[in-house]
C-alpha cells in the first residue's frame, strides 16, 4: 500500500493504534478476570476441601502433610499467621505452636545427655509419648514444620542431615565437615574408634583425634574404655536410641 502523506494519514494511523491498544487491553482484562475467577474458584474449593476434611487434616499426619504440599503448590501457607482464615478454619496454627513449645522443652531437657543434638526420630518418639493424651497423632513432617517455625525466634533451632538421618540441633554449635563425617560413620554402631575413623575416612591420626576431642568437649560424644579389646570407643547419644530412654526417665 502506498503510504498516504498528510495529516489525515497520521490521524488514521493513530486511531488504528488506539483501536489495537483497546483490543489488546480488553483481551488482557478478559484473561486476568478469567484467571482471577479460576483462582477464586480454586481457593474456595481448597477451602471447601479443608472444611470437609478438617478432621482428617487435624488427626491424620499423612493427610496433613499432603494437604500442606498442596497448599504450597498454590502458594498458600496455612502457617503464615495464626490469624486469618486458615488458622480459624483449621486451628493448625495453634497445633504447630504447641508442638514448637514442646520440642523446645524436650531439646532442653535432653541437652545434658546429648549435647543439644537429637535424632529427629527420637524427638518424635518422645513428643508422641508426651502427647499421649492429645487427639492428634504427630509425624516427623509435623516436627519439621514446627521446627521451621521456631527459626523466627533465632534461637538456633535447625535440622541438619547427617548421612541418612535428620538431627535437630538446639545449640548454636557449627558442626564442621569432619564432625559430620564422624557422626555419619557412627550411625552404623552408635560409636566409632580412632582407628576406624582413620581407616574409613583415610585421615591422619591427629585429625581424627582433634575432631573427636571437639565432639567430646561439645558434649556430643562420650568415651567408653570398658571393652575387652581395650580400644576406646566414642559413643554418640544423638545417633543412638538410648537418648530417648534417658530423656523419658528424666522428663
Amino acid at each position, binding site marked *: 500500500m502506498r503510504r498516504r502523506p498528510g495529516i489525515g494519514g497520521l490521524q488514521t494511523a493513530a486511531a488504528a493504534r488506539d483501536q489495537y491498544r483497546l483490543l489488546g487491553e480488553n483481551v488482557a482484562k478478559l484473561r486476568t478476570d478469567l484467571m482471577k475467577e479460576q483462582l477464586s474458584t480454586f481457593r474456595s474449593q481448597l477451602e471447601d476441601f479443608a472444611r470437609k476434611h478438617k478432621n482428617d487434616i487435624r488427626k491424620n499426619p499423612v493427610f496433613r502433610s499432603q494437604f500442606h504440599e498442596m497448599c504450597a503448590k498454590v502458594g498458600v501457607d496455612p502457617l503464615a499467621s495464626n490469624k486469618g482464615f486458615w488458622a480459624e478454619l483449621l486451628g493448625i496454627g495453634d497445633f504447630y505452636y504447641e508442638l514448637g513449645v514442646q520440642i523446645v522443652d524436650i531439646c532442653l531437657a535432653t541437652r*545434658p*545427655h546429648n*549435647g543439644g543434638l537429637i535424632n529427629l526420630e527420637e524427638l518424635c518418639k518422645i513428643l508422641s509419648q508426651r502427647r499421649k493424651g492429645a487427639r492428634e497423632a504427630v509425624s516427623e513432617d509435623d516436627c519439621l514444620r514446627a521446627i521451621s517455625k521456631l527459626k523466627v525466634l533465632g534461637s538456633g533451632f535447625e535440622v541438619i542431615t547427617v548421612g541418612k538421618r535428620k538431627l535437630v540441633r538446639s545449640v548454636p554449635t557449627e558442626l564442621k565437615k569432619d564432625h559430620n563425617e564422624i557422626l555419619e560413620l557412627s550411625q552404623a554402631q552408635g*560409636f566409632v574408634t580412632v582407628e576406624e575413623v582413620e581407616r574409613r575416612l583415610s585421615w591422619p591420626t591427629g585429625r581424627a583425634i582433634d575432631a573427636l576431642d571437639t565432639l*567430646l*568437649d561439645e*558434649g556430643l560424644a*562420650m*568415651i*567408653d*574404655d*570398658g*571393652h*575387652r579389646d581395650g580400644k576406646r*570407643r566414642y*559413643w554418640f*547419644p544423638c545417633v*543412638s536410641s*538410648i537418648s530417648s*530412654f*534417658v530423656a523419658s*526417665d*528424666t522428663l
Partner: protein
Amino acid sequence: MQTLGEHKLPHFFNYPPYFTLQPVRETREKQIQVWKELILDYCRTQKVFIIGLEQDFPLFSNPAIERSLNHEAREAFLSALVLDGRAEWMDKSHRQCLILWHRIKDWADIILRFVNENGLEDSVMTIEEIRSGIESRGTDIHGMDRTVLMRALKLLENKGKLAIFKGTSTDDEGVKFSV
C-alpha cells in the same frame, strides 16, 4: 526394661559409656547425677546400707553389655553422694561406704512416726525389737542398719524424745521413749 531382682533399671545402665568416667566436666556431672539417683534408689528398694567398693555390688557391673565400673568411677559416684550428705565413708581408705537413702534426721522422723502410730510414746524397747520386731514390719525401719539406727536414736535423745540405756550386752541395749 531390664530388672535387677525386683529393681527396675534406668536405660542408661545399658549404654556402655556410662560405665567409663567421662573426661568432660559437664558430661561427667550429668553422668554422676544419674548414677547417684540409681544408687540411692537401688539401696532404698533393696534395703542396702553398706556398699563395699571392692565387693561385687550388682550395680557396679552390667554383664549384658560386658561393662563394669572401675575403682575410680565407683569412688567418684560414692564421693558425690558423700558430698550431698547421702553417704559416709566408713574408713579412711574409702573401702566401705554407708548409704543414707534417708538422711539421719529423716530416719529420726520416721522413728517418731512409728512410735506415734504404734502408741509407743512411753514404752521401752530394745534396739533389736525396733529393728526386727512385729511392730516395725512393713516399714523402712524393719531390718535397718544398726549403726544408722543408733545415730538416729542419738539424735532423738539429744532432742529429749527418748533415753538410750545400756544393758549388760549389746543385745539388751534399749530405749525409753518419752515423746
